[in-house]
């Protein structure tokens, strides 16, 4: 078969190749088939080409020995996908917390405004109370000292005994009196409720105990001391007014309220988490 081959033109070769694949239209196919009946050499060329095509189609394709699946590292993808949802959730939580805290502050402001509206009335009541304190007589002015009496009397006992006994014991009195001063201060704080009054009263109470210890329980000395602290005793009344005025406003003067701190923390968290979420989402692609 191969011996009778003749050299085909490019056009004939394309025609035969297309005929094998059924790419000729009906007219072209009929004309070629008519030629093939007459031209045996052309028929032999067609057969040899067809054999070649059949042989190529029967060649089994090689199979790869491995898979070619991609890993995140191959395509420059890191692995943020697992914790990005967690970041999103945390961001949403921080945002919600911030909104809730701002809303809470709004509610507090509203209630504060209502209290402020009632403030003048409260101020008048305070003035009345102050007048009553001023018009009170001296024994009344000594009332805080009387209230302190039980504890101080109990404390006076070792001081008086020490004064009657030996001079060495006197050396022990001063530290003991110093220790008593804070106790007196605590009690005064309960009465007045303001720092200024507490300080004054605390000093007065400390001096009183010290004075008593030094005087060895002299009643005149006590009266004198009480007379000295009469003037500072007015401070709690003024301090009470100031304290009331402060308590009528929610925001504490001189420091940031805890609510504001929480708002700041929630807001900062929201911003940081948002930035992290966006960053890691972009990082993954």
């Amino acid at each position, binding site marked *: *078969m*191969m011996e009778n081959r003749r050299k*085909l033109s*490019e056009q004939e*070769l*394309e025609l*035969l*190749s*297309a005929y094998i*694949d059924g*790419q000729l239209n009906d007219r072209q196919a009929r004309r070629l088939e008519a030629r093939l009946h007459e031209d045996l050499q052309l*028929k032999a060329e*067609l*057969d*040899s*080409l*067809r*054999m*070649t*095509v*059949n*042989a*190529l*189609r029967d*060649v*089994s*394709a*090689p*199979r*790869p*020995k*491995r*898979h*070619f*699946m*991609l*890993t*995140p590292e*191959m*395509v420059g*993808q890191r692995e943020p996908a697992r914790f990005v949802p967690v970041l999103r959730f945390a961001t949403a939580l921080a945002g919600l917390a911030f909104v809730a805290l701002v809303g809470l502050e709004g509610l507090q402001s509203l209630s504060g405004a209502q209290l402020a509206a009632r403030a003048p009335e409260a101020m008048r009541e305070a003035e009345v109370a102050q007048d009553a304190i001023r018009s009170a007589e001296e024994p009344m002015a000594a009332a805080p000292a009387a209230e302190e009496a039980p504890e101080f009397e109990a404390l006076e006992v070792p001081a008086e005994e020490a004064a009657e006994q030996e001079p060495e014991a006197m050396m022990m009195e001063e530290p003991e009196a110093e220790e008593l001063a804070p106790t007196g201060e605590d009690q005064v704080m309960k009465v007045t409720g303001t720092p200024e009054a507490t300080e004054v009263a605390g000093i007065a109470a400390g001096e009183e105990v010290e004075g008593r210890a030094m005087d060895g329980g002299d009643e005149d000395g006590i009266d004198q001391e009480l007379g000295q602290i009469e003037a500072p005793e007015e401070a709690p009344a003024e301090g009470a007014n100031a304290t009331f005025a402060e308590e009528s406003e929610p925001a504490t003067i001189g420091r940031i309220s805890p609510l504001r701190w929480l708002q700041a923390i929630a807001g900062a968290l929201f911003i940081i988490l948002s930035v992290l979420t966006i960053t890691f989402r972009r990082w*993954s*692609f």
Partner: protein
Amino acid sequence: MDETGLIREAKRGDLDSFNRLVLAYEGIAYGVAYRIMGEQQSAEDATQDAFISAYKSLKTFRGGSFRSWLLRIVTNACYDELRKRKRRPASSLDDLSDGGIGFDSEESSGLFTEQQRPEKEVEQGELRKAIERCLDLLPAEYKIVAVLVDVQGFDYKEASEVIQKPLGTVKSRLARARGRLRDCLQDAWELLPGKYRLEDETR
């Protein structure tokens, strides 16, 4: 999920969806790469590079035949690799003798020596070697068309999409490739299995 859905998810960055496409097409991609490169290791490298490129440029896929689009990337990766090496593709005869190709037949299993194999197996092996040698001798532009149409079974339109040339170019290149292959295989015709000779005689 169908191919369109997998492509859509892969475009959004879902690597698992893209890997399902890889599993579906890695056989044909490697087959084409192997025919172009002529040996296993280069074909594997080119195939892997092609899938990486395909994933990174997936957003440029605007529909149509994904297989054609992917094989275009595979052929480009192969030609890039060949250009880098600045050498002809190695003959696959060495690979065959080393058992380096994963053919289906027992040939690669090492069960038979050349002398022990049945006559038909020897014929098949010899014919395959001859065909691959002749394919390697073809110019690259002819070889890719012959591989796509005659080995992988693509139609002319798909082949034209892969090589990005008109249909007429595919037809003429295919005809020339077949003519050269026929001439190259002239000495191997006697090794053809009976069915080819029978077909020849019946026409």
